[in-house]
């Protein structure tokens, strides 16, 4: 199948190095300590953060740092074909783990000993790149909850189809069987905290694809930073400062 047509356009009309439309909103779940919706094109996820709070299960308590927990769930209506999936399949357990590890790397857990931070991500619509969208939503929700972080982790995926590196794959491109590189970075510290790839790629192509994904992450980081700044300005305005 042709994923990039001769004019250089992808199936959804994007250019190979173009991202999908980003949209995010902070504070969507009013009862959570922090929450956000993050959309990348048709992929839409909600993240809610509860904590830092008392550890629920005392045996998990760590004396010199906070416990970070994460649960990823997909709504039944999030995919195109209706399927009743068991709630804890391998895939969601793995994604929960990936998100937890990525967020743990940036939260200053040592500042909140003997406490617990819960991150819940819920996929409302899945159209490829849910992993990335979940991490971006979780970052925003953590920032909204006012949890101290080293940096804003952002994530983006890139792939390689029809000998063209493609940024931010959608579902059709994702299921094409080509390589899919998901990268998560700490943009200010310039460090990679998440890297996953399936399928095979020559070494030098991998470098360009990964570089592309990193550029994507930086674009997301800029967007998130702008959004947080805007949100803070609004909060400031409401307080009458």
């Amino acid at each position, binding site marked *: 199948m042709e994923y990039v047509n001769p004019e250089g356009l992808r199936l959804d009309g994007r250019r190979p190095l173009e991202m999908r439309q980003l949209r995010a909103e902070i504070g*969507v*779940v*009013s*009862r*959570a300590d922090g*929450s956000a919706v993050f959309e990348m094109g*048709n992929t839409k996820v*909600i*993240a*809610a953060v*509860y904590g830092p709070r008392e550890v*629920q299960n005392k045996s998990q308590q760590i004396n010199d740092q906070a416990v970070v927990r994460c*649960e990823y*769930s997909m*709504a*039944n*209506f*999030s*995919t*195109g074909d*209706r399927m*009743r999936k068991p*709630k*804890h399949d391998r895939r969601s357990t793995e994604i929960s783990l990936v998100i937890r590890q990525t967020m743990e790397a940036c939260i200053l857990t040592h500042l909140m000993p003997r406490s617990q931070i*819960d991150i*819940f*991500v*819920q996929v*409302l*619509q899945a159209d490829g790149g849910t992993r990335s969208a979940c991490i971006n939503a979780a970052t925003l929700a953590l920032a909204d909850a006012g949890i101290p972080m080293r940096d804003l982790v952002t994530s983006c995926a890139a792939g390689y189809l029809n000998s063209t590196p493609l940024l931010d794959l959608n579902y059709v491109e994702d299921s094409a069987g080509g390589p899919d590189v998901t990268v998560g970075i700490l943009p200010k510290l310039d460090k990679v905290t998440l890297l996953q790839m399936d399928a095979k790629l020559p070494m030098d192509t991998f470098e360009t694809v990964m570089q592309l994904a990193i550029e994507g992450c930086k674009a997301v980081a800029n967007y998130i930073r702008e959004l947080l700044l805007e949100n803070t300005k609004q909060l400031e305005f409401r307080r009458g400062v």
Partner: protein
Amino acid sequence: MVGLSVGEKHFIKGGIEQNLRTDGRKRYTYRPIYVETAVIPQANGSARVKFGATEVIASVKAELGKPSPSYPDKGKVLIHVDCSPTAEPAFEGRGGEELSSELSVALQRCLLGGKSGAGAGIDLSSLSIVEGKICWDLYIEGLVVSSDGNLLDALAAAIKASLSNTALPKVQVSSAASDEQPEVDLSDEEFLQFDTCGIPAIVTLTKVGKHYILDATSEEESQMSSAVSVSVNRQGRICGLTKRGGAGLNPSVIHDMISVAKHLSEQVINKLDSEIAAAEAREEDVP
């Protein structure tokens, strides 16, 4: 989980007694209702409904299926509710399952009537395409995104809004021999809308102390002795009834609660209908 001090509990109960609740409402007032339709593009119909801080999403997916042998002239409708852990950390893992099933069963009872579909808010015979062979199966999925009490009323409202947003493709049946499975052709252009005026609204009255309140928040729900959910349609008929909560109720109190719920339902249905109409008008404005 709601943690309240003795003083707070007293304050909530006292407020209800004096007909002035903690958020300034009277006993029989709803929180502001917000409806948004067509929120899930993959579904045939969907809606998001907010009652104050409670937020639920409902989606309708239609598939062609085979009617059950006992009711060959009727389609099938299934309601399933999921409680997302974003709403409450207690819903994590299998924690939300109990509440999910309680809500699913209550909705099924209140909206779909008995097994035969008699008294259903949705006309099940309108889902039949070829008797005994093909019918529409409607899968209604509810998702609780944020929970601040009164989930049942919110879910019922979301389901009604999503059904009124639902468009079923028109089906062309090519006539085949009587014992074969007929071939069908789905139209991409012509869609059928649902008639939603028969769908009842659920009115939940929560009993706190001696009084009942409408649209309780989760703080108020934590103080309830019992709650009665009545589903009432536009004609003022009662379509279903569920009682929740541990404490027993006097039969005369139940009768009184039902008549209060019936009286309030008219205003709720009108409010909801106008919100749904407004949401659909907004959706048409933005192409």
